[in-house]
């Protein structure tokens, strides 16, 4: 037989996009926020990021090895999880706790459910919630910008704008909020850097704007209706980080356009409800995780009909 007639199984065309290329783009998009956190919080921010990344990659390698599966550390997804996890931690966090978070994210949330593409919630966010539940004091000790050094004794702790807003003592300063001159988690503070990263992801077509726009738009409209300051609510807390980098995670967000709209609006409603009426000052992580769990149901309800099927014509046939 002529070997030229051999037909391989589909797909016949490959766009050339691989997981590692996508993850590399996400890492590039995260660099502005990383630089901002190092400038604002000092070199310790970089150390925390290195610890979580190292912990994530090592746990990925070891757990894949133990489960006798192929090694996936080169797809860089563990690196992204590590950076995102560090972005969700305060800079003063104990390094052992940060490493524990990395292990929880990769081993418990990701690999136990089958690895990349199989996790039912975002690993970095789930690890953050595990840490918040386990170490409430360490996870809510915020340092003032530009005061952090190596020794723990020098840290000047303060409340985040959101928790100040709950008790009504925050003086609004959009400039500081936009450029991240405020206490908070390492990656969430600098809105400018996060938006820059988001624009990069949009240009590279790694994410579609549907989820971030629906999410942030819902928060804007709801806080406006409820008589709060919408711009303050968008710039403070982890909303931008969550909307751009966490809610758009491929594995844990819906595939269809309608599904993405529902997902984004749901995240927005939950975030506003938790922030304004819940016991916690911040609710981005919980709302994204909750919507992550609903994704299979959202996808089932918004399934795309094949062309020519469904609608009224079914009865006639």
């Amino acid at each position: 037989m002529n070997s030229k007639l051999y037909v391989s199984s589909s797909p016949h065309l490959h766009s050339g996009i691989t997981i590692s290329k996508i993850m590399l783009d996400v890492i590039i998009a995260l660099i502005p926020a990383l630089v901002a956190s190092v400038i604002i919080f000092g070199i310790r921010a970089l150390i925390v990021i290195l610890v979580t990344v190292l912990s994530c990659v090592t746990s990925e390698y070891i757990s894949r090895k133990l489960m006798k599966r192929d090694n996936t550390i080169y797809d860089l997804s563990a690196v992204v999880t590590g950076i995102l996890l560090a972005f969700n931690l305060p800079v003063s966090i104990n390094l052992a706790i940060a490493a524990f978070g990395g292990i929880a994210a990769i081993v418990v949330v990701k690999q136990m459910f089958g690895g990349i593409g199989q996790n039912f919630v975002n690993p970095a966010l789930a690890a953050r919630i595990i840490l918040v539940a386990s170490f409430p004091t360490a996870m809510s000790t915020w340092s003032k910008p530009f005061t952090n050094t190596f020794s723990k004794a020098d840290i000047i702790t303060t409340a985040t704008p959101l928790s100040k807003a709950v008790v009504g003592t925050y003086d609004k300063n959009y400039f500081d909020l936009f450029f991240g001159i405020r206490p908070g988690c390492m990656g969430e503070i600098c809105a400018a850097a996060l938006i820059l990263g988001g624009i990069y992801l949009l240009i590279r077509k790694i994410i579609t704007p549907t989820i971030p726009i629906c999410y942030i738009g819902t928060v804007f409209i709801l806080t406006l209706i409820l008589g709060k300051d919408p711009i303050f609510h968008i710039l403070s807390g982890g909303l931008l980080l969550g909307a751009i980098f966490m809610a758009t995670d491929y594995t844990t967000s819906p595939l269809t356009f309608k599904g993405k709209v529902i997902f984004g609006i749901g995240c927005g409603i939950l975030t506003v409800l938790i922030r304004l009426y819940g016991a916690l000052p911040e609710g981005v992580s919980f709302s994204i995780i909750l919507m992550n769990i609903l994704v299979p149901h959202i996808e089932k309800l918004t399934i795309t009909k094949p062309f020519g099927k469904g609608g009224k014509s079914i009865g006639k046939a």
Partner: protein
Amino acid sequence: MEKTSFKLEFTKGIIKENPVLRLVLGTCPTLAITTAASNAIGMGIAATLVLICSNAAISLLRKVIPDKVRIPAYITIIAGFVSVVQMLVKAFTPEIDKTLGIYLPLIVVNCIILGRAEMYANKHTVLPSIVDGLGMGVGFTAALLSMGIIRELLGSGTILGIPILTNLIDPVIIFILPPGGFFVFGMLIAIANKLSDKPAKKAELGCSSCPLGKNCTSISKKEEA
């Protein structure tokens, strides 16, 4: 011959047919009270006492109880023994009564006890039933105790109230919260599955691969039919 079968009846409850980890019965008290090792011991002993007594009584009465009303009859017998145990605990160890709270009277509806009555005691004579109850009780206590030790050690840094890790690491509070309970529970089930017989092949999933398969009434009925 009889001696070895007694030994088997006793040991099967510890790993192979462990009521909590292999049969997944009685999960409610397992998850709720294992935040500390001392609770686990109290609960385990109380449930074991009830289990032995109810197995013995039901085995004695197995020919008297009409089949149609056997469940209410079993529940009445079990409730009687639970009341006795509850009064004893209240009288002699009021602290344990306080920590166990509602879960002590809830032993009445613990499915391990009803399960053993239905699966074992109503088909066997008194002595094997007592040994079965003892084995199952020890298995239940062992599972609760291992969960309690792990959760207390990691979640509060102590074992039976004695500080072990308190100065070394910060306690990981999530282990004494419900999610940590489910996590430890799942890990122990995985270990118990690994330690017992080879896992059933996928094709065999169903009634025949269940550890209760031998004793289950629905299977034997199907075979008869």
